[in-house]
């Protein structure tokens, strides 16, 4: 593979990251593995002793796990939608960030479904989903949709990687033999012939177009698990679009955070520029406004009409002794904070945007929890149960351990993947980027003036 000068520069910059597995990286990897190990022990307990070890009971049948499931599938939208849409729109500045975005998608789509498996009482009977499938069940829709979506996002990531694998293969890097061999296999004989180039281009375009509706279907179907039931707070017609928007929103937040970490860790300031943070900040602000609108519209209609059952759920969300503080946090940190940080020119800096993203992502996790638990704690018939764990959900250490293990797995995958492939795609850059290079650092003020 012939590299132009700019590509060479991008490659040389990232070469050490791939070639060296530093002590620090080892340290983190072991730390994540320990974390996952604790989760593994928790999982063993849950399988050996039954779901008794979780905080879930007959009223609150789902808890942290489902919230995590929605959360991870949500952040997987970073690659699918942000990268997909920016690709379709041929936005040039997307190039350095698409790899990170698509990595988030693939990793989150692996971890998300693990959490729904944790909710299942009989994992030994999982094959029943294929032996006796019933098409009218939203869970079957989920299995189909997530399966397709996962395949789609792996292909989308891989298509953009083939050229890069060919570059790694030909660069004679100082890497172990197995790695060299992997690059060779994964590059599937790419030599950069016109016909190969054309095929990859067409396939990438097709995947970009397909991945967007696929992603929308996945989260709609997921929201319908709740929307299709007769439960107050769930049985809502806007759940599909509401979940989809929240997902893209949280995905953007995670993308911004991942960019910040990589930029710092691998010193990629010249590629992941302030401009990227600010542009993604704008996207986040617009999505935040949309998400805020949906939230407002959902709770206003419920509160105004004040039907008996919905009022009960709403009153729990508004009551400071119950979920009031969490609800407030979810809305302040999840809606107001990111919008304000990006809207005010003074605070529109990469660091502050990243901090806002961090709180927003946490707030969106809390919001998912608030969608699940208060509704399940408000059954239509009075509970009249004296067993406190049946009345009020409180997650046990097993659930928290597995939740943290999920987060650790996310980080672990991220670390390992960035050691296997360059986080900034090399082949995407042409010669013209080199010429445009000097204006990488754009001051926020200048940005507003031009906008």
């Amino acid at each position: 593979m012939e590299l132009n000068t700019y590509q060479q520069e991008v490659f040389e910059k990232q070469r050490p990251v791939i070639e060296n597995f530093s002590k620090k990286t080892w340290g983190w990897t072991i730390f994540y593995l320990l974390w996952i190990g604790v989760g593994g022990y928790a999982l063993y307990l849950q399988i050996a002793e039954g779901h008794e070890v979780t905080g879930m009971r007959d009223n609150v049948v789902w808890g942290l796990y489902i919230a995590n499931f929605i959360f991870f599938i949500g952040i997987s939208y970073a690659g699918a939608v942000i990268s997909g849409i920016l690709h379709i729109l041929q936005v040039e500045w997307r190039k350095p960030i698409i790899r990170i975005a698509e990595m988030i998608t693939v990793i989150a789509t692996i971890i998300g479904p693990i959490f729904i498996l944790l909710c299942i009482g009989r994992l030994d009977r999982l094959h029943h989903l294929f032996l006796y499938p019933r098409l009218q069940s939203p869970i079957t829709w989920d299995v189909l949709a997530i399966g397709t979506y996962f395949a789609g996002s792996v292909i989308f990531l891989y298509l953009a990687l083939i050229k890069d694998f060919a570059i790694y293969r030909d660069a004679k890097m100082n890497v172990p033999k197995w790695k060299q061999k992997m690059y060779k296999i994964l590059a599937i004989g790419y030599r950069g012939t016109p016909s190969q180039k054309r095929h990859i281009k067409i396939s990438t375009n097709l995947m970009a177009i397909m991945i967007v509706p696929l992603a929308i279907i996945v989260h709609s179907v997921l929201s319908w698990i709740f929307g299709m039931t007769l439960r107050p707070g769930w049985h809502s017609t806007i759940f599909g679009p509401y979940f989809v928007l929240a997902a893209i929103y949280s995905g953007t937040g995670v993308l911004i955070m991942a960019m910040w970490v990589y930029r710092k860790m691998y010193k990629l300031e010249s590629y992941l520029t302030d401009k990227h943070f600010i542009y993604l900040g704008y996207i986040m602000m617009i999505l935040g406004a949309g998400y805020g609108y949906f939230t407002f519209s959902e709770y206003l209609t419920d509160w105004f009409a004040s039907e008996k059952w919905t009022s009960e759920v709403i009153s729990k969300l508004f009551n400071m002794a119950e979920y009031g503080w969490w609800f407030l946090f979810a809305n302040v940190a999840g809606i107001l904070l990111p919008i304000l940080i990006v809207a005010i020119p003074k605070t529109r800096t990469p660091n502050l945007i990243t901090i806002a993203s961090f709180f927003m992502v946490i707030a969106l996790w809390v919001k998912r929890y608030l969608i699940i638990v208060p509704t399940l704690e408000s059954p239509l018939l009075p509970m009249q149960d004296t067993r406190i764990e049946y009345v009020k959900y409180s997650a046990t250490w097993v659930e928290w351990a597995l939740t943290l293990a999920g987060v650790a797995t996310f980080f672990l995958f991220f670390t390992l993947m960035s050691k296997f492939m360059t986080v900034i795609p090399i082949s995407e850059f042409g010669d013209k980027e080199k010429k445009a290079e000097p204006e990488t650092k754009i001051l926020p003020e200048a940005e507003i003036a031009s906008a």
Partner: protein
Amino acid sequence: MKEQEEINDNGRRGFIKNLAIATVATAACGSLSCSCKSKTDVAVTGNKVKLLSPDGEIVEIDSAYLNHQEHMAIVSKLEAREGMAGKKFVMVVDLSRCKNARKCVTACQKWHYRPEETEWLTVKLMKDSEEGAPYWFPKQCFHCDNPPCVKVCPVDATFKRDDGLVLIDNDRCIGCKFCMAACPYSTRVFNWEEPYQPFDMTGMASNPETNIPAKVGTVEKCDFCPDRSREGLLPPCVEACPNGVFYFGDENEDTVSNGDETISFKQLIKDRAAYRFQEELGTKPRVYYLPPKDRQFPVERGYDDLPEKLKDRFRDIMENKS
């Protein structure tokens, strides 16, 4: 009452016996691929099977000595999915007679070998409005004609039968609990841990009509006791009630019985202005309630004698009442 117990006991014994035979029959048919109808096959196979004797003892015998029955009280899983031809089971609950004696609850638990905490049938204390009078409200599965739980099951483990029953195959259930989230009446119960068993049930084959033995990680609920209906018996809750609160029967035949009297279903729900719980949800329950009008017992009668633990359930309503 004593007599009642006796009947229950006999019923259960016969039932266990049948169950054991069913277990053995399936095992034998499966492993030897013999015809269940064959009666001449007496060659010792060396294939030992465990049986539960009518006295409650486990005995081990060679499968060749088993007497395969053509008409078993316990039907095959396939038949259990179809239901009893021509039937349409229905229940009417007379709220004016209930005093929370809780005999139905214990009879149900006893029949299904469920522990004290597991209440397939539960008695709630309802108070519809602030000024309204509280009343006792026994609630089992409503066996809805438009069941939200069945709609969402991904593996067809819970299903609706032609005779109106909604049952669960606990050998198929994957334990996703979606049906529990979908049921607006909190009817379903999950086995969060290895379920309580009054005696060793290993080797017993579960059937949707009985759900015995219970299985960890699966969902269960009131099944309207179809195994008893097949024997022409009323469900234990109906028989156990000292006040004749429950009427159980067949809508097609237009008869319901509470054990003391057998009357016309249509006439009863017409005369007594029966209603279905939360009709507005569109689930079309198969359980009708007769409003708690002209009540036979003051509501306190069901509260004062309760053990403290049970009293706690209803304390806020009872204590705010006066």
